[in-house]
Structure formats: structure tokens, C-alpha cells
């Protein structure tokens, strides 16, 4: 009997080896949760089913698909990553929040190569943070452009902001442009005005710094252009295409409004890239943000499942599935092959998207603080009465950005006798801006202090690193475990830190 059993067992084992021989090591059944937008739930279900039937690795997904708007995915994932979806779609502006919550698995080397080779170059850049890729690009159409009512706006006027305003005022119609939202108002600063606002983020999704020149002559030009619309009675701060029903002749919105706009305006619907405004005889084309929707994978305990999910993400963001989403919902694909398809090339809405993209700034990870700082620009600019007022708006903007960075956990601060040794993250301490700081050292018993990171009392920056200006500080010798810098005399000093050495200059 035993012998018989052994034979049977051996046979079973041999058989199982045969049946798996054709499949890769990824073969198996996986239960997964998927979050996609309501509009593509049914489509995604069919696509996953097709993946199960066609994939060559023997992977079978038992997927539970939930509706989740791309704008809400982050706030839901952040709540409880463990209970969140295994694979989900999200708008690119949420990347940093998701990284902070450790809700995105890194793409491996091969996957990253796949992304570089198969997707829109800008979209590949958008999933890269600190040199590592974190998601697959799903769409490349997340920007805004102009929908207009041809019965009010003559086609030849669409290139000029001034003419458009005039047409709207003459017809008693609204020009809807949601400038109270900096995602839209930043468009004036980008484009031909030539400003940038790019945040430097670390892998934890915290802001390390920002390259932002809104507060400049270029920014002033942009704000003057924006002011033309703000001051007109026809301005309406909305990005809903349904505003066409409420007496709007122009609505600046994105692809998500296309089907509704078509239904409201019918043959009168016109689509164009944003217009130019004229300052001192020069035309400046309004720019825009250009973003992507991404598909991310939650970090998995099981590396095999992770690999299988990567296969699924590659399939869902691939040519075939992208084209299906374009056909059913008009989503512009990020996949290069799909982008080259006739159907996509001949889409007038996507044509406007791409025309506007030429003036767009690719939306990379942005500090969460920026939105509230920027959203008030329009209101403040509307209240400004003269050029000085407009300049003040930009100064306020810059100040608030600097304040938001002060809270950055990666900043260096110099705490000491001059500020009562206050090292709280938000305390009025001395921060290194561009690696340097200026401080007033008052007369006291111990005119010393330490250079630290907030919440970190590291001793790797201080007395021992001072290369220039050593004569200005007391030599505490080896009896200085905290590596403190103690000034010999009171006065005003500039301290510079370049990453390895400290320079001290007395002013």
C-alpha cells in the first residue's frame, strides 16, 4: 500500500512539474484590491479579465474593484495603507503624500527601464523622485485649455486675451477661469512669462527646497496679464464646463469636461489652447500645468505578488488598454505606442491639450503647503490698485513660501545664546538659507551655539568644521563634545555651510 501511495505521490509531483513548466515563477492566483475612477470601473474589470486569460505567466488575479476618484486616492491610502488597494490610480500631485505614507512600491530596475522605453518622457519624469521611479504613467492629458462658445467668440479672437475679454464683455457673458486655484493661476506665470516653480522633494515626500521666481520682473508681467482678466466684470472663477449653462462663453478646464461641454454646446463648441496677453507691446502666451494620472502599486510583503502586479500595471497602462480608455472616455494615453495611434492623433480635444502642453510646465511633486499659499494670489491681485500693490502680492507669496520651508525637517538651524537656545521646529531660530545665514550675537556669558537639524541633535556640523574664520571663535579644544561654536566677541556674523566646511565672516 505504502509503495502504491509513493508511486501516486511521485506521479502527482511529476505531473505538477509538467503543468507548471510552461508558466513562469509568477504563476498563481492572487487576490487584489483595485481602485479606479468610477468612469472606468467596468472597463478595468474587463481588462483584468482579459489579462487573466492572455498573460503568459499563468497569473490569475481575483480582483475586487472599487470606485475611487484619482483625486481621493491619496487621502484614502494614507488613512490605512495596509487596508488600501494593491494597485490604484492617482493624480500625480498626490505622489509626495503617497510617498510620505509609504504607499508606493519602488519600481525595480527592469520596470524602470520599461517605463523609460514605453511611456511619454515627461510622464516618466513625473514618476521619478530622487532618482527612483514609483508608478506607471496612465494618462498624459491632465492639463487645462480653453473651451469656448463659437456663437459668441469668433475663431480669429482665440489667440488674444484682450479680445476675448472684449467679446465676453460685449456679449454680457462670463469668462470662466478658476484663478482662485493656483493650479490654474500659475499658468500665467509659466508659458511665455517664463517663471518656474519647481520643488525639490526627498524620498519621504518632504520639501527640501524650491526654485521659484514668481517674485521677479517676469512674475510682475504675468500678474499684470492676470489682472486684465481679474479686473473685468466678465471674470468668473470656475473650472466647471457646466458654467456654459450659467452664461459663460469661455471656460478654462480639462479633458474631464469634454463630453459635458459637447452636450451643452453641440456644434458651437470650440476648443483651443490658452490665449496670449499683451504687456508693453509684447505678447505672452499663457502657460499651464501639465500633469499625469499614474498607476501605483502598494508595497507588498510577497515579492512574487509585487512582480505579478507590475505585470498587470504594465498591461493596464499598455497600448491596447490605453486606447480602450481613449475610445470610451477620451483619456489621453501616456503610452507612446497609443499616443501614435490614429484615433488619438485625430482627437481635437487632445490636439488642444498637446498644443497647450508646449507652453506647459510638467507638474512634478509639489509641497502640500504651496496650494494654500498660491490660491490667494488672484484675490490679492484683484484688490491691488497699482503696480506697487501687485509687487506686494508677489513679495507676500515669496515670504510665505520661505516660511513653509522653514518648517522643513531638513533645514539647518543655528540655535544658541542669541535666541535663548530655542530649537523648536517652528521657533524663530536662525535658518541657513542657500547654505548661509547672518546673525546678531549679543553680549552674554556664553556666546555660543550649535548647528543642528530640527529634531536631530547631530554633532557633525560645528567647531571642528570651521575652515575660515577660526580666529573669530573660541578654541574649546577637545573639551567640546557638542562641537559648539562659541564666538569670541559679540557682533554680526555671516556663517556659511557648504556641506563639509563652515566659513565665518564678521560683518
Amino acid at each position, binding site marked *: 500500500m505504502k509503495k502504491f501511495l509513493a508511486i501516486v505521490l511521485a506521479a502527482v509531483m511529476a505531473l505538477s512539474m509538467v503543468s507548471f513548466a510552461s508558466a513562469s515563477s509568477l504563476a498563481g492566483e492572487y487576490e487584489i484590491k483595485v481602485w479606479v475612477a468610477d468612469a472606468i470601473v467596468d472597463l478595468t474589470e474587463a481588462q483584468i479579465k482579459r489579462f487573466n486569460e492572455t498573460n503568459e505567466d499563468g497569473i490569475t488575479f481575483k480582483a475586487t474593484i472599487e470606485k475611487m476618484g484619482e*483625486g481621493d486616492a491619496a487621502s484614502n491610502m494614507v488613512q490605512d495603507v495596509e*487596508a488600501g488597494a494593491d494597485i490604484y490610480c492617482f493624480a500625480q500631485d498626490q505622489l509626495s503624500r503617497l510617498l510620505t505614507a509609504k504607499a508606493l512600491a519602488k519600481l525595480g530596475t527592469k520596470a524602470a527601464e520599461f517605463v523609460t522605453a514605453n511611456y511619454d518622457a515627461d510622464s516618466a519624469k513625473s514618476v521619478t523622485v530622487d532618482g527612483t521611479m514609483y508608478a506607471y504613467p496612465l494618462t498624459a492629458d491632465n492639463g487645462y485649455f480653453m473651451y469656448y462658445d463659437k456663437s459668441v467668440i469668433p475663431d480669429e479672437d482665440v489667440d488674444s486675451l484682450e479680445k476675448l475679454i472684449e467679446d465676453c464683455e460685449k456679449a454680457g457673458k462670463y469668462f470662466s477661469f478658476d484663478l482662485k486655484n493656483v493650479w490654474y493661476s500659475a499658468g500665467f506665470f509659466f508659458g511665455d512669462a517664463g517663471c518656474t516653480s519647481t520643488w525639490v522633494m526627498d524620498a519621504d515626500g518632504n520639501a527640501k527646497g524650491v526654485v521659484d521666481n514668481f517674485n521677479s520682473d517676469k512674475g510682475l508681467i504675468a500678474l499684470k496679464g492676470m489682472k486684465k482678466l481679474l479686473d473685468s466684470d466678465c471674470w468668473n472663477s470656475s473650472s466647471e464646463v457646466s458654467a456654459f449653462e450659467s452664461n459663460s462663453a469661455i471656460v478654462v478646464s480639462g479633458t474631464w469636461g469634454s463630453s459635458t461641454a459637447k452636450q451643452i454646446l453641440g456644434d458651437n463648441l470650440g476648443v483651443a489652447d490658452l490665449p496670449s496677453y499683451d504687456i508693453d507691446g509684447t505678447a505672452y502666451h499663457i502657460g499651464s500645468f501639465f500633469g499625469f494620472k499614474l498607476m501605483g502599486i502598494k508595497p507588498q510583503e510577497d515579492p512574487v505578488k509585487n512582480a505579478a502586479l507590475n505585470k498587470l500595471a504594465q498591461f493596464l497602462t499598455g497600448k491596447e488598454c490605453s486606447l480602450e480608455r481613449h475610445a470610451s472616455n477620451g483619456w489621453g494615453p501616456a503610452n507612446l505606442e497609443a499616443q501614435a495611434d490614429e484615433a488619438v492623433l485625430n482627437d481635437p480635444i487632445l490636439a488642444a491639450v498637446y498644443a497647450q502642453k508646449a507652453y506647459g510646465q510638467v507638474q512634478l511633486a509639489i509641497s502640500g503647503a504651496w496650494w494654500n499659499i498660491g490660491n490667494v494670489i488672484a484675490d490679492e491681485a484683484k484688490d491691488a490698485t497699482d503696480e506697487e500693490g501687485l509687487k506686494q502680492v508677489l513679495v507676500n507669496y515669496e515670504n510665505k513660501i520661505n516660511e513653509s520651508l522653514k518648517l522643513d525637517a531638513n533645514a539647518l538651524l543655528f540655535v544658541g545664546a542669541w535666541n535663548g537656545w530655542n530649537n523648536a521646529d517652528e521657533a524663530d531660530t536662525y535658518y541657513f538659507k542657500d547654505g548661509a545665514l547672518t546673525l546678531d550675537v549679543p553680549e552674554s556669558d556664553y556666546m555660543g551655539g550649535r548647528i543642528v537639524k530640527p529634531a536631530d541633535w547631530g554633532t557633525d556640523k560645528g567647531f571642528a568644521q570651521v575652515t575660515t574664520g577660526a580666529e573669530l571663535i573660541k578654541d574649546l579644544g577637545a573639551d567640546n563634545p557638542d562641537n559648539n561654536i562659541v564666538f569670541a566677541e559679540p557682533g554680526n556674523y555671516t556663517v556659511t555651510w557648504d556641506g563639509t566646511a563652515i566659513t565665518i565672516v564678521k560683518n
Partner: protein
Amino acid sequence: MSESSMKRHMGLRASRTLGNTLIYILLITISAIWLIPFFCIVLQSFRVESTWQVGYVMPKVWGLDNYRKLFSSDFTRWYTNTFIISVFTALFQTVIVLCMSYTLSRFRFKMRKPLMRFMLILGFFPGMLTMIILYRVLKDLGLTQANAVPGLILVYIASSGMGYYVSKGFFDTIPKSLDEAARVDGATRFQVLKKIILPLSKPIVIYTVLTAFMGPWGDYVFARYISFGASAGMNVAVGLYNWLTPDQINNNYTMFCAGGVLVAIPVTLLFLFLQKYYVEGVTGGAVKG
């Protein structure tokens, strides 16, 4: 009647009419301001020529399409969930609150006063503080996301014993001699509650049921947190909110309004029929602490 008194009489009547007219105008204005939003929502729910927001109130084409679509969507699931949660919460919470109030009103036991004070202090802590820990506990019990309904019932009835103030105040106003007479006749404590106190406390019972029903009916914060990301466990507030995302609102706005109307119906009916008791309940409990 002398001429002067006639005049005075006329003057009185005229001024009363004038006063009434003014008051009515004021009341009509106030109720119009109150009712217009509801009125608009009802009208929008019957508008079928488009599904997005429009700049006018009166539908151009009337119809029931929005309601039809509503019943083929997840809404029925959310509505059932909400209804189940509210009914169970109303039931359990009422029983717990009434038992609690009766005990604290009629029994004299050691630590009674400290217990009451302790619950008063506990009540000062905002419930939101417990949200995260509640989520963790429920998650371990498997009562979140798709299984959120029993979880939410637990959440809503969990601390209901502390809401005894109003009904205890009411019970305190019922003479103790009634209890004593019944006890002398051989009634048990429970029989006293059932046969004497409760029939005399109809307003407060109905008030308790109503408030217990209303709490979960319109809750968003807890419901969203416990049922996150799973349509099957959502209540109406959370579910309907999902229709307001930028890519959804243009397709679902009128359906959203129809949903809002259906959500309002049970609550309106309850209040319409139980309003009398509700007012008595609110004021009745305030006699004595």
C-alpha cells in the same frame, strides 16, 4: 358706544391687522429663505434635460430618470446600509439610555454621584479623538470597509449610556410615590419601568428614538473613516459625496439631488408625525437636573 371709543376700537383693530401683516411678511420671508434650497434640490432632481449644474431653477423637461438611475446604482446599497445602521442604533441606544436614566433616577447606590460626574467629564472629550483607535479596533475585528455596517452600529451605540441627562431629568419629575405604590402592590423594578414610568414618558422615549436615529443617518466623518474605499460598506452621506468629484459631478449632479431628496424623506416624515412629542421631550427633560 361713544365716538371716541369707536375710534379707539377701530384703531386697535387696524394696528393689530397691521402688526399681523408685518409678522406674516417676516415669517413668509424667513421660511422662503429656509425652504428655497430644499425646493431647488427637489426641482433639480426632476430635471432630465441635462445632468450637470445649470443656471436656472425650473426644469425644462420633467421626468423620473434620475430616480430610475439612482435605483440601479450603488445608492440602494448605501440607503439600505444607512437604514439598517440607523434602525439598530435607534433601538439599542434607546434601550440603553432609558435603562441608564431609570437606574440613575430611581436607584440609590454607592458611587452613583461620582459615576455621574465621571460620565459628565468623559463627555467633554470630543468623540473625534477616539476615531483612530476605534478604526484600529474595528479593523482587528474585521468590521471595517465592506463590513462597516455592524462596525458603525457598534461605534454609534458604544457610548450611548452617557447621553442619559435629558431623560433622567424627565424621570425625576415623575413622583416617586407612584413607584412606591406599585412596589407595595408587588411590582418588580422592571414592571415599574415598563408599566408606570414609560407610559408617562412617551415624549422622552420618542425624543430619544429620534435623536438616536438622526445621528447615524447623516453622519459623514465616522462613516467615511470606517468604510473607506469600499462602496459596499458606505452610508448615503459618504456614497453620495463620491459623486461630487470633478470628473463625476457633471454626470451625476441631478442624480445626487434625487439622492438628497430620498435621504430627506424618512427624516421629514418622522419629524412631521412626532414633532409634538419632540418639543415636549426637549423641554420636558429640562425641568430638573
